[in-house]
């Protein structure tokens, strides 16, 4: 009867070595890839553009993010300004109606 309970360290090492051999044999195939494969890789790379184009795109992206907080602050300030102007305008129209209701006809089609 075979002793199956606990494989010896030596047996485990031998098994690992045998599997390592099998593993290494997978990379032993040194056939060069077909020409078409290389052309496909180069096509993908050309589609990405030159480094100058890439750098310009990155610079644009960088500037966009750098300017984003400034744009947000401007947006808030403009909203506040528009709201203030709007309130003033409403107040002026209201005061016009109150002070001279006969003349203050806003809707006069003729």
């Amino acid at each position, binding site marked *: 009867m*075979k*002793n*199956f*309970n606990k*494989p*010896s360290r030596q*047996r*485990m090492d*031998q*098994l*690992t*070595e*045998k*599997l*390592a*051999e*099998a*593993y*290494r*044999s*997978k*990379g*032993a*195939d*040194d056939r*060069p*890839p077909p020409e078409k*494969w*290389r052309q*496909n*890789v*180069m096509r*993908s*790379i*050309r589609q*990405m*553009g*030159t*480094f*100058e184009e890439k*750098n310009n795109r990155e610079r644009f992206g960088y500037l966009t993010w750098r300017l984003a907080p400034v744009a947000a602050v401007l947006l808030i300030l403009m909203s506040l300004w528009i709201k203030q102007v709007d309130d003033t305008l409403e107040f002026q129209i209201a005061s016009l109606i109150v002070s001279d209701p006969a003349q203050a006809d806003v809707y006069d089609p003729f």
Partner: protein
Amino acid sequence: MQNQTDAAPDIDIIRHVTSGDVNAFETLIKRYQSHVFSIVRRHVPRDMADEVAHDVFVRAYQGLSGFAEKSAFKSWLSGIAVRTCYDFWRNKYKIQEIPVSRLSDAHREWLENSLSNDAADVFDDNGRHSEALEILEYALGQLSAEDRMIVNLIYFEGLSHKEAGALLGWSIPNVKIRSWRAKKKLYKIFTEGKEREA
């Protein structure tokens, strides 16, 4: 121009590429395609090797501006190749596309004989190479993407923890812990059939 770059050192070609000559990158592909394929074929299934090697060179091109000239281009490219293979397996596990292979009776018998302390030396039998390959695929298929890479690099390629960590971009303690755990899992995979019998 092509003839000039064919013999030029890697670093000169890299400078050409980064200054706008995209076509010069083809020289680097020709020079290192065999090296990249030898790495990729060991880590991923044969039918996926072309696709993964394609990704390796695309990633290398994308990262070329960050290439530190103090290291060799070949070892830098090896790191990209290993990490691309790792990402391939991570992606496979994420979409659960790992084929669940089973060991046949013949494989199990081979494994049991291999591990049996009383058995004759089965390792002299070169005709059992294909079975070893199938058992290897089965065992690796039971491991996570991280453990698979660690087992390949540490136990099958014989790299040090430092070398494996550099290739995968992991810290040395992380590699040490993972390799120890992966070895335990591998041991369990090889002996689980026998434990069940016992």
